[in-house]
């Protein structure tokens, strides 16, 4: 069927995607509404900061160091074609801070966190734990969604900052150890050309990505179908949607920052 009618399948996918986006927007509204009304569950928030932020450090650090190292090699190779091998430090720093740091961290957190949130909340849904919360006069939006969304919004920028630093360090290692650049010159070049806005724009992106990732995870978890199959499907949809949204939001934010 898909083979015979690829255009139809594409059209259906687009329509489904738009419908999901609409429902997600409604969910976003409900989340924002729940955020500004007490009670606020501090313990849940603290726990979410731990699970989302702290536990994501290793994977974000590892991806950043390899990304920074590869970037240094590529820039050196490309730059040397017009005798500009010495731009490696500044381009690695700017590239990491403005683009690769937030995007790589966003994608890794999207994979790790949106899936685990969707699976956890989805399981709670199919085992009637969400119903039990409601009967115990506890609003699932405030108890489950708000703490996770806020925790991701504040911790992903921190992850991005750590990733930026580690990525720049990865570039430094490659630059000084295998490309033969001077260590002191490398650091000076990095510091001279990197502007505050390069870093903060990346952190703002990180906050936006964190917000979207947790929101999508909660949304798909809360709307999980019945049974193990339902939870599996919710988890998969959450990871796909979170990754696409991170990249789409990255483009939109970059456009806004570029115009500013």
């Amino acid at each position, binding site marked *: 069927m898909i083979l015979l009618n690829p255009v139809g399948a594409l059209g259906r996918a687009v329509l489904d995607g738009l419908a999901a986006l609409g429902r997600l927007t409604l969910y976003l509204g409900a989340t924002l509404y729940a955020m500004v009304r007490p009670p606020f569950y501090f313990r849940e928030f603290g726990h979410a900061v731990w699970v989302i932020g702290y536990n994501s450090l290793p994977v974000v650090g590892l991806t950043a160091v390899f990304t920074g190292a590869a970037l240094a090699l590529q820039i050196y190779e490309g730059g040397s074609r017009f005798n500009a091998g010495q731009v490696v430090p500044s381009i690695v720093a700017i590239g990491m801070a403005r683009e690769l740091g937030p995007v790589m961290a966003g994608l890794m957190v999207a994979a790790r966190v949106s899936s685990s949130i969707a699976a956890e909340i989805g399981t709670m849904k199919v085992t*009637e734990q969400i119903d039990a919360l409601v009967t*115990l006069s506890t609003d699932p939006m405030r108890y489950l969604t708000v703490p996770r969304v806020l925790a991701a919004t504040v911790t992903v920028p921190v992850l991005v900052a750590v990733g930026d630093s580690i990525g720049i360090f990865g570039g430094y290692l490659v630059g000084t150890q295998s490309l033969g650049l001077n260590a002191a010159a490398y650091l000076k070049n990095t510091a001279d050309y990197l502007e505050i806005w390069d870093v903060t724009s990346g952190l703002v992106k990180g906050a936006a990505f964190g917000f979207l990732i947790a929101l999508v995870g909660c949304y798909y978890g809360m709307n999980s179908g019945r049974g193990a199959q339902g939870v599996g499907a919710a988890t998969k949809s959450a990871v796909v949607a979170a990754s696409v949204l991170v990249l789409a939001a990255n483009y939109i934010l970059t456009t806004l920052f570029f115009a500013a």
Partner: protein
Amino acid sequence: MIELRDIRKAFGRNHVLRGVTLTVPKGESMVIIGGSGTGKSVLLKCILGLVRPDAGQILIEGEDASRAEREAFLARFGMLFQGGALFDSLPVWQNVAFRLMRGATKRPKAEAREIAIEKLRRVGLKPEVADLFPAELSGGMQKRVGLARAIAAEPEIIFFDEPTTGLDPIMAGVINELIREIVVEMGATAMTITHDMSSVRAIADDVAMLHGGVIQWTGPVADMDHSGDPYLDQFIHGRAEGPIEAVR
């Protein structure tokens, strides 16, 4: 008093409730029986607002449930879910004391824990269980923790969805007695779903049988054995032959 008027609920083409009308007087124990999949659990969820009925009216002490202020409304209820529905991220005692540690009924942690341990004792669980996590308990133990949670805040109206399923006969007897005590001593209104006929006789003031999406028969438990209703007779005697098709 709980009054259900012509409650209807369908999931897609599956018409589960087709006009349920039932009255549960205050301080009485109503037991709901009926075949598997006839919508007993769905009926309780409709009353709590967890499932929105397609039509019909639910009155609690004369007040329309759909218009009530949600938080205050739910504070009057306790519910034991069929699957237990324990929060697996929290230890047993925090599950039991969940309502006691939040909202209007909030009290100090030590006191909440003490109440939780007392409720666990009443459902036949030792204090050592309090610090375990739900995943570390057997099915029957989880059920009893769910029961302890349902009664922890001493609600006026309590729903038990299959409270004795998965329990040994002695423990089932203990739980039957507990439910009876809660109704008699605390004056609570109880609605219990069960498949266990000895449980029905131990718990019920009134019995209602749900079949084909409506209340097939309802009346005092004493009348159950000579109701003259062929559906009810087949059900309580567990016969394969009769008006209810056993093999579908």
